[in-house]
């Protein structure tokens, strides 16, 4: 096959490229230029592109750079900013996968005659018991990234390869070092690429939106503190709320950016037994019917969080209602929520947590 492999300059995508070559595919590497603004996180930097190019040279494959800065701004950065204005907690890395890697890049790859797109994600694409392809958890449980690539639909599942999904991280590094790849010992990227480590989210958003100060009130409506930027407050947060010291622990249980207002309460007020998910992407359309009959699922709501048992019910409006078997802490609106099968192996669907 002719495969276009997205090379970020990290060790996983380096080994993904090497693995595809070893499997006998015709491989071309590409680095996407996404963020054009300031950054000190290293991601998308010239030195990362250098690493990707040097690895490609070592492996003897062509390396391209695609400039997707405009799409990244339009599909990832601007929505990230406006989500904060709306009081949501977005996950930009997931939106980047959704709109850039598995849409813009795969569309470009199809146009150029490639048979598949590959990335270095720690996830697998395997047939389930019914023979349907599904995003499947990676072999390395600690590094599993099926949550962040959950949005692959039928079309993309058949067009995507995750060559290192069957390896542990240690095996990936071992293979890189055996091949003498310069990225073998390169640390994993941790941060959102367009948010600087020094300035953080506050400095990034502060340059783009006007923060609104908001009162922090308790259940009775009494003002107990104040925040300088309601846009930076997340459900479950308990620091930086201007609350008097020594008082019992309080958590943000509600953020209303329209008023604006932040409500705090005790930990138990965070618990809830249901959740609604919008913008749902189904691995297979047949899952909607199947889930309508038997809704037992495991639900994961953060990149490395535990998947918790629940019953999921597809709603006529396209959303999915999730009813937890045991009450859970509320999930901040805007977060991605992914449904796995009861064996905790296969992705069934994923979407965005709704407010309220």
């Amino acid at each position: 096959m002719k495969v276009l492999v997205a090379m970020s300059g990290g060790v996983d995508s380096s080994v993904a490229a090497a693995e595809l070559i070893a499997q006998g595919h015709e491989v071309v590497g590409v680095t996407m230029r996404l963020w054009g603004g300031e950054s000190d996180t290293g991601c998308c930097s010239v030195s990362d592109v250098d690493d990707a190019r040097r690895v490609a040279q070592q492996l003897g494959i062509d390396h391209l750079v695609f400039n997707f800065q405009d799409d990244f701004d339009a599909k990832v950065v601007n929505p990230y900013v406006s989500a904060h204005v709306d009081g949501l907690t977005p996950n930009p890395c997931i939106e980047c996968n959704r709109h850039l890697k598995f849409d813009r890049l795969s569309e470009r790859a199809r146009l150029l005659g490639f048979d598949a797109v590959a990335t270095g994600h720690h996830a697998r694409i395997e047939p389930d018991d019914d023979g349907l392809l599904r995003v499947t958890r990676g072999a390395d449980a600690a590094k599993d990234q099926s949550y962040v690539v959950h949005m692959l639909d039928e079309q993309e599942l058949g067009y995507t390869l995750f060559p290192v999904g069957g390896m542990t991280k240690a095996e990936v590094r071992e293979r890189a070092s055996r091949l003498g790849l310069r990225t073998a010992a390169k640390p994993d990227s941790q941060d959102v690429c367009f948010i600087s480590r020094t300035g953080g989210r506050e400095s990034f958003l502060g340059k783009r939106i006007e923060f609104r100060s908001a009162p922090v009130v308790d259940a009775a409506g009494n003002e107990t503190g104040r925040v300088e930027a309601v846009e930076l407050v997340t459900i479950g947060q308990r620091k930086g709320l201007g609350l008097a010291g020594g008082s019992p622990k309080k958590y943000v249980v509600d953020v209303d950016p329209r008023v604006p207002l932040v409500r705090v309460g005790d930990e138990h007020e965070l618990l809830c037994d249901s959740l609604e998910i919008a913008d749902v992407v189904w691995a297979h359309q047949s899952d909607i019917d199947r889930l309508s009959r038997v809704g037992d699922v495991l639900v994961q709501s953060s990149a490395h969080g535990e998947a918790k048992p629940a019953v999921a019910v597809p709603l006529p409006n396209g959303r999915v209602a999730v009813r937890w078997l045991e009450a859970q802490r509320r999930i901040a609106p805007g977060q991605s929520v992914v449904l796995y099968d009861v064996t905790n192996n296969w992705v069934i669907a994923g979407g965005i947590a709704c407010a309220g």
Partner: protein
Amino acid sequence: MPVYLDHAASTPMREVAIEAMRPFLDTTYANPAGAHRFARRARKAVDEARDEIAQAIGCDPGEVIFTGGGTEADNATILGATRMHGGVAVCSAAEHHAVLHCVEHTRGPIVGTTATGSIDLEHLERVLRDRSIDISVVSVMAVNNEVGTITPMRKVAALVREHRPNAILHCDAVQAACWLDLREVSPLVDSIALSAHKFGGPKGVGVMTLSGGKRVEPLILGGGQERDRRSGTHNVPGIVAAAAALRATDAERASEVARLGVLSRQLEQGIVEKVGEATVTVPADQRVPGVIHMCFSGVESEALLFLLDEADVCASAASACASGAMSPSHVLAAMGVSNSLIRGALRMSIGHTTTQDDIDRAIDVVSSAVLRLRAR
């Protein structure tokens, strides 16, 4: 053999230039500033190269300064002028970044361009008339590197001389050497920048000229070479090869302009006929034969270049940033080209090695790639 349509980025070295530099890589290795026979031999070669280059430019050999490339020549003149005389530099928005970024660095005004990429003379005149701006240097390219537009240098010079007789008029002639007789450009301006690898010489060698009465602060200090105007040991093989390449370019220019003019029109018309909807950025009578620039709506340059590369045709779109990513062209933006057309830009540049076969194949490959990308 690939069809090489990227001569404006770098044209293949001429055989005479390769032959000329060989002895200076091999046996005549001495530093020309030395006090022995080897050094004198190298010195003689540099002196002769300087004479030849001066002859091709139409200036005095004492006005020729060797640099490490065209970018350095532009920087040395523009920044050197503002450092020595104060004030700011002026240029048009379609200049090469080697000029544009220098002018921006001096916080000088950027003049608009016409729809074909030439400096807007009315705007230039308004800036030159504005006495609140202290202008020490005006920089205008003879030929645009992306779209090939020829600047009416005579008109530019007349305006600058009339309104700013003391300013240095600098001409980035990096893309002009193959197409314009430099002897007609040099009397109009005070300084010229050339880059050897654009006319069949090696990379890393540039020429700047500075006419007798004008002075700029040197950019590079050190051993005082080039009459204290540019320090650093002479790149003897590079300088000798640059001279040989410029001599050959100068000798062949008239016939090459005619030959490549025909091929250039064929390429342009051939593609337009086959793909239907294609926008020719600059009409042939306003550009050099070497640069054929077109925009294809509904096509993305990155995708087009990939398909061309796969079919062994080497072309370009706009300048690349440090990462190698293609940046949207500032030249086309300055010309007022719409964003959708800028995204589908293609620059094909031809030169001394281009053949009729190259053109025939390029027409086929480019048009079928455009049609394929539009079909999806």
